[in-house]
């Protein structure tokens, strides 16, 4: 690998000269790293859609898709081909520029957040020291895709759906943010890597179990998933903010939603379930990335499990839960954690 690297370096220097080569090389190398990160994420997203249909199918004593390839293994590709081939319709009176910007603005933040997710102590695209703040900041951008799509579609259903969705997302972001504060307090760092390292002895889920539960439920609401999928409440709003989207622009919303779900799962296992740490020291011969994958996979399963189990919330109940239940509990826990840390002399 280093030989190859050196070879490329020398060839490049000879070709472009010392002025331009480092610039080009930095850009190309960053691009390669981004592609190496995004490709598995997208494959994971596409297979997560299959897993969803399978899991919910089995919970409803059905099989789920099993025709495209063995065990339905080619179903995501069939879906992708179908979406690509479909005509992209633009509703009359839609604001074209905003209309096409919106799906991109939903997917791009969902992928941007992956940049700071550490898969192991070494495997991380951008190890920035405010990783957790970065994730929160980027996740708050996701609201704009929703709002813009609802507004630009020039349709009541889409507009109502986007209003609901945006209200829901910013409300639950508050409690989501506050559940992370005790984690930051216990770890004493904003870097995701340090937070995982701080769980070497005890996973954060043990002292912060209620926070973990609230984090996960808020995460479900944040990603607009059932039972909080009010923005797309079919019975009332057709499909919510993406009612008027078709073909691949619809597909982008879909990809964004699933990428967000997977991200919430990974983040949850990093922040609360010890990331790549094995549950007991004996099992440390298994590589950390497998532990992380197992934990995130479990949380991803819980997403689907919840969807197969619970009926949809009413909107006022949703808001009540977020502001009157989760927010006070998480604020109290922030306070308790700080007091506990002060009393037991960790700070």
């Amino acid at each position: 690998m280093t030989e190859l690297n050196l070879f490329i370096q020398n060839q490049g220097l000879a070709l472009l000269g010392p002025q331009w080569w480092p610039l080009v090389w930095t850009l190309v190398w960053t691009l390669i790293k981004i592609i190496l990160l995004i490709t598995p994420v997208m494959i994971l997203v596409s297979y997560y859609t299959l897993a969803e249909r399978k899991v919910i199918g089995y919970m409803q004593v059905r099989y789920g898709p099993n025709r495209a390839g063995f065990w339905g293994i080619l179903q995501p590709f069939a879906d992708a081909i179908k979406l690509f081939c479909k005509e992209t319709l633009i509703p009359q009176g839609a604001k074209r520029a905003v209309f096409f910007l919106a799906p991109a603005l939903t997917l791009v933040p969902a992928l941007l957040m992956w940049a700071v997710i550490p898969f192991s102590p070494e495997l991380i695209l951008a190890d920035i020291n405010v990783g957790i703040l970065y994730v929160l900041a980027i996740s708050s951008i996701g609201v704009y895709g929703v709002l813009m799509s609802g507004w630009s579609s020039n349709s009541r259903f889409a507009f109502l759906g986007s209003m609901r969705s945006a209200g829901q997302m910013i409300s639950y972001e508050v409690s989501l943010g506050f559940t992370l504060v005790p984690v930051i307090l216990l770890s004493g760092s904003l870097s995701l890597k340090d937070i995982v390292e701080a769980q070497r002895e005890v996973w954060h889920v043990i002292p912060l179990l209620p926070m973990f539960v609230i984090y996960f439920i808020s995460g479900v609401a944040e990603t607009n998933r059932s039972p909080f999928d009010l923005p797309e409440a079919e019975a009332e709003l057709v499909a919510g903010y993406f009612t008027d989207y078709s073909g691949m622009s619809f597909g982008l919303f879909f990809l964004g939603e699933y990428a967000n779900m997977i991200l919430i799962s990974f983040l949850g296992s990093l922040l609360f379930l010890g990331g790549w740490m094995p549950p007991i020291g004996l099992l440390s011969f298994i590589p950390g990335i497998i532990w992380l994958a197992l934990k995130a996979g479990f949380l991803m399963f819980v997403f689907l499990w919840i969807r197969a189990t619970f009926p949809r919330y009413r909107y006022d109940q949703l808001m009540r839960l977020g502001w009157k239940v989760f927010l006070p509990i998480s604020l109290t826990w922030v306070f308790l954690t700080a007091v506990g840390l002060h009393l037991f002399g960790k700070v």
Partner: protein
Amino acid sequence: MMVVDVIFYAFAAVTALAAIGVVSSRNQVHSVLLLILTFFSTAALFVLLEAEFLAALLVMVYMGAVAVLFLFVVMMLDMELNELKEQAINHLPLGLAVGGVILLEFVVVLSHSHALPAAASSIPNTLAIGRSLYTQHLYPFELASLILLVALVGAVVLTLRERKSGAKRQNISQQIARSRSEAVELVHRKPGEGA
């Protein structure tokens, strides 16, 4: 390295152009969207200046909350642009005065502080901001949070309406706390006896 400079000026140009767009756009929603772009590229400038904490906060607070509320209001309201224009002319002197003051302040501040403290390399800027806020500037900080609290309570008071007397409201905890023994009574009746 000059690459960083190029990126910096690119973002600075985007910021300036978007800011001009905010005031010149004819569509209010586009104005707000451009405002959001301004926030975002400003955050990018902060990142390039190695102030990641400030950048994250700017995105989280201004993009994630404040601008969303702007967008909500602008999307919901049916504003008459012509009326707004007429009013704008009335407010022109005041606006120019405020703008002038701000410009003056900028000039004064920028011309008197060549020695802007460079980003401290040894300690992370999150830590630096925390230390500064909770030691040096503790009282202003607490005062600011108190003002925010007052504003918060004020907003609650303004929007809190007493329901009309006699209006029924759902009491969810009461509903959930109901048990079978309170809700159902089993009565055995022989046929022909009636209830």
